């Protein structure tokens, strides 16, 4: 009895949270399309999210691309298929590791900072102050953050992540595994299809949406003082990562399941 009640309670509270986040998302997205717009805020967020995330994203994918090349070389040599290395590296990076790794890293960076910033604004009454100064917090705070992340994740971060990831594999393969540079590049370019890149960019956009949604939702609804801000920050990062991995599967199925 008690056990069933417990399950019921968990399910209900989960549905309630999902409903609240859903409403928040609809609200936030609809404010992107209605004036007044805050281009100054949008630009600030785009620079912060896109530009300042580049170094970590680049470093991570560079080493991952190299590690991937080592693994595939060793694995494929078991059945003398080393020549497939460039193709597998490029598909692995572009379809999967580039977007997912940068998503997770940007989640740690951006969701956390959004939740902490908005949470602090909430507990120090800055969000209330916005309302008394004829400014809609959804338009001024939420909409620019969501829009900036959805633009910057594909255009800036994931294109760079994919390129640097492939470069990592290339550098390792040509310097340590004895691949010929021209052949490596040729098979990379020959086997990469438009749909791979499409999938990569779609994933990036979807991840960007969840990164900002979770950061904004948890920050905006912060309660309590410094402790509340800490809780919101943790919840934002954890839920953003879960949503990234979950939506990664869904988008992959949409693109590639036959």
């Amino acid at each position, binding site marked *: 009895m008690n056990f069933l009640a417990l399950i019921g309670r968990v399910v209900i509270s989960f549905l309630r949270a999902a409903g609240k986040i859903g409403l928040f998302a609809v609200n936030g997205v609809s404010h992107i399309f209605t004036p*007044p717009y805050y281009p100054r805020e949008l630009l600030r967020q785009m620079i912060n999210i896109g530009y300042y995330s580049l170094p970590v994203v680049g470093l991570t994918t560079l080493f991952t691309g190299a590690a991937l090349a080592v693994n595939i070389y060793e694995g494929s040599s078991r059945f003398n298929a080393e020549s497939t290395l460039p193709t597998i590296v490029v598909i692995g990076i572009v379809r999967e590791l580039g977007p997912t790794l940068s998503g997770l890293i940007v989640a740690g960076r951006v969701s956390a900072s959004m939740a902490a*910033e908005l949470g602090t*604004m909430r507990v*120090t*009454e*800055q969000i*209330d*102050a*916005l*309302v*008394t*100064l*004829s*400014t*809609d917090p959804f338009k001024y705070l939420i909409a620019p953050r969501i829009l900036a992340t959805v633009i910057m994740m594909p255009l800036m971060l994931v294109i760079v992540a994919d390129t640097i990831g492939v470069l990592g594999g290339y550098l390792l393969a040509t310097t340590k595994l004895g691949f010929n540079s021209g052949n490596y590049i040729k098979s990379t370019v020959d086997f990469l299809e438009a749909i791979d890149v499409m999938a990569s960019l779609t994933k990036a956009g979807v991840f960007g949406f969840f990164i900002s949604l979770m950061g904004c939702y948890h920050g905006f609804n912060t309660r309590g003082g410094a402790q509340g801000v800490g809780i919101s920050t943790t919840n934002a990062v954890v839920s953003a990562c879960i949503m990234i991995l979950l939506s990664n599967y869904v988008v992959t199925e949409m693109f590639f399941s036959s």
Partner: protein
Amino acid sequence: MNEVTPKISLKGLRKSFGDKVVLNSVDLDVMPGESMVIIGGSGSGKSVTLKCILGLLTPNGGSIKIDGKEMIGIAHSERKEILTKFGMLFQGAALFDSLPVWENVAFGLLAQRLHNRADAKEIAIEKLRRVGLGPDVGSLSPAELSGGMQKRVGLARAIAANPEIIFFDEPTTGLDPIMSDVINELIVECVKEVGATALTITHDMSSVRKIADKVSMIYHGNMIWTGPKDKIDQSGNDYIDQFINGKAEGPIKMEILKG
């Protein structure tokens, strides 16, 4: 019907957080151009009252009228329109720390698209001067200011767009006596010269005597006494007497001990 409509009229306003009743039934009328001061113990619901009027908190019941117009249940767009009449100084200043001081002060002007940035900056610098801060403060970030300076920037921000109704939540706490007096004069000026209606929360009796037309005391979620400032010493109300004289002995202490 030549009675003046109150600028702000609260009737039976109720607000609780969970089981905790903060406002039981608050009645309060503030006339246009009047300076009303609310006094009351810490945690008695003064700030909550202001936030209910502004719609930052949703009351559990009662009525809030601004210029005779009911605010509870009003459409979002209409509320936004009415909110442009208000200026609010928050107890903790609530400055935007991502913006420099002058942009904080000019925020309302820019949000209402009343001025371009250059003009708004000029007005902001002028408002800063009126709260005793030099133009060089304008380019600092709020985190670089002392608590009292932040409070004064908050004050400059509250009056920047020349609002019809101004709320001051403890304007002089954290200020030295001289600066307190400057701020009190500024509040009087806003009311007398600009014709604004002011609702001020304070614990500072010298400030009450300086700025109030009327005084109202909140206790246990009700306004237990409201009257003109000059009647406050002869209110015949033990709670008021104890509060304005700052005595530990009296009905309020008794209740604290009982609770």
